[in-house]
């Protein structure tokens, strides 16, 4: 019969139309910004710099190695190395970024900077409400704007941050143990040196 297919199709639409008022899972509209859906943990948008402790400048994990700057596909990262050094989380003296800018109007949220960073210093944020009236300066984030605490990182990516923290704690413990061993070895060496140095002093007496 001509029109049978049409009627069958219309029956499908009618069924869907009716179901869209009944089925709760099909009422998908969320009244943003009053209502918000729970963020997905893996979500990423723009990078931020992680810092430990309270002072953002002292706690920045970045050592300005410039790997991310080199690997960034759209080249949106700009880093200037510092002239002096500051101690990192294991107490080793490292240079730090005197300037670290990300132009988020260029950034394409690909996460490659995060993957190549050997210091767990740059991570992806989930903050998306970044609109500004100044499209040049307002979208060029400097290191102050980029620095966010480790607590923030733990909040937005709990699983990933837990792994990173465990790894860093391990590294720190290892470094401390090594430092202790080194100190002991140095002390023993110094003692031995003192001992070997003593007899000639005694002999000369």
């Amino acid at each position: 019969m001509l029109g049978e297919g049409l009627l069958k199709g219309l029956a499908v639409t009618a069924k869907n139309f009716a179901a869209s008022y009944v089925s709760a899972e099909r009422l998908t509209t969320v009244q943003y910004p009053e209502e918000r859906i729970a963020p997905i943990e893996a979500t990423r948008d723009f990078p931020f710099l992680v810092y430990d402790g309270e002072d953002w400048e002292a706690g920045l994990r970045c050592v300005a190695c410039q790997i991310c700057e080199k690997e960034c596909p759209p080249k949106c990262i700009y880093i200037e190395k510092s002239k002096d050094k500051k101690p990192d989380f294991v107490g080793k003296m490292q240079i730090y970024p005197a300037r670290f800018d990300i132009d988020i109007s260029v950034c394409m949220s690909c996460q490659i900077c995060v993957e190549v960073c050997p210091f767990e210093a740059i991570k992806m944020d989930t903050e998306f409400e970044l609109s500004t009236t100044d499209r040049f300066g307002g979208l060029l984030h400097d290191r102050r704007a980029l620095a966010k605490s480790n607590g923030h990182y733990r909040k937005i990516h709990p699983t990933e941050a837990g792994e990173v923290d465990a790894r860093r704690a391990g590294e720190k413990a290892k470094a401390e143990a090594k430092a202790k061993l080194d100190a002991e070895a140095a002390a023993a060496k110094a003692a031995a040196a003192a001992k070997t140095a003593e007899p000639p002093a005694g002999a000369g007496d």
Partner: protein
Amino acid sequence: MSQLQSHSATAHEKPESQKLEGWNQPMELQPDGEAEILEVAMGPHHPSTHGVFRMDVALDGERVIRLKPVFGYLHRNHEKLGEGQSYLASMPYTDRLDYICSLTNNWAYALAVEKLTGQAVPERAEYLRVIVGELTRVQNHASSIGFLIQDMGASGTPLMYAFREREKILDLFEELTGARMMCNYMRFGGCRVDATQSWLDRTRKLVGELPAFADEFETLLCTNEILMARTQGVGILKPELAVNAGVTGPMLRASGVNYDIRKVDHYGIYDRFNFQVPLGDHWDVYDRFMIRLLELRESLKILEQALKEIPEGPVMDPKAKIRGFRPKPGEAYGRIEAPKGELGFYLISDGSPNPYRYRVRPPSLVNLTILEDMCLGNNVADVVLILGSVDIVLGEVDR
């Protein structure tokens, strides 16, 4: 001398019909019998062109007598950019080729680099690639059918049904890869992150639900008299021409040629799965639409098998280096059956960290080359339909 001149003049004199077919000639508007030939520029902002694509159409009344595709409006220097940066840095750019199916683009590029470096991929990563690749195919075919019907004038309904399902798949992608469309998921020697058990369970649940969606789509569309009247016998692509023009993917199979790279090339682990390759009988727009629907069902079959068989293990080869590697001088061509056809990446290495040559073989562009042959003699309204049945994404056509 005068003889030579007159000779060359006659040699350049073309018959009227050929003059109209010269693609690079300025169009001459002249009366052909009683009707006047009208040149129409469809696009680049025409809603049916799926982006920024222009067709210079010459019309004799409603009949198309010449069609000249013009593309390049979305050119962004993808291949040259690839030569100026490391192998890894091109990976997120491949997401932006065919932005509907970023995961299959990742796969083809990863495959090419793995061939170049001789990198092995762990078992679990291969399964994850198949799972995300087939999910990509499902959502691409569903939305491309939706777009085709939208072009026909059925504004909304089928497209919204397709997008409803696509939304669920994109949510899965976001949970796994961190992004809905620009996934940037695969790496040379595996995948970036592992899928959790809950993700796999949710994917299983979705794959269990999708056949019902395919049934619904089929009831909604396949026997619809208006759709059949508009699409059957329109835009016929003969198998000989399809093969000669290098057309691949659902387009080629709708023309009755049995060529699926998953079956021919056995890349990845596709030889382990049991699935069929649907073929067209009438080579028209309706066949292309049906082939996509049938392939969607075959993809669901593959997904079921892959989700059942997926083993435990690492998703990344521990020896794999994602940055700072220098492949030995040589060349490699990695190709996969992307939802739109054969997607290939051709790489030449000169031993430096950047590729010496980086070339993309985009299925959309090659499938678009026979557009004029399919459109000639049809109504101008059918051009929209035929273009819709090619299933192009301009990000890939223009690169």
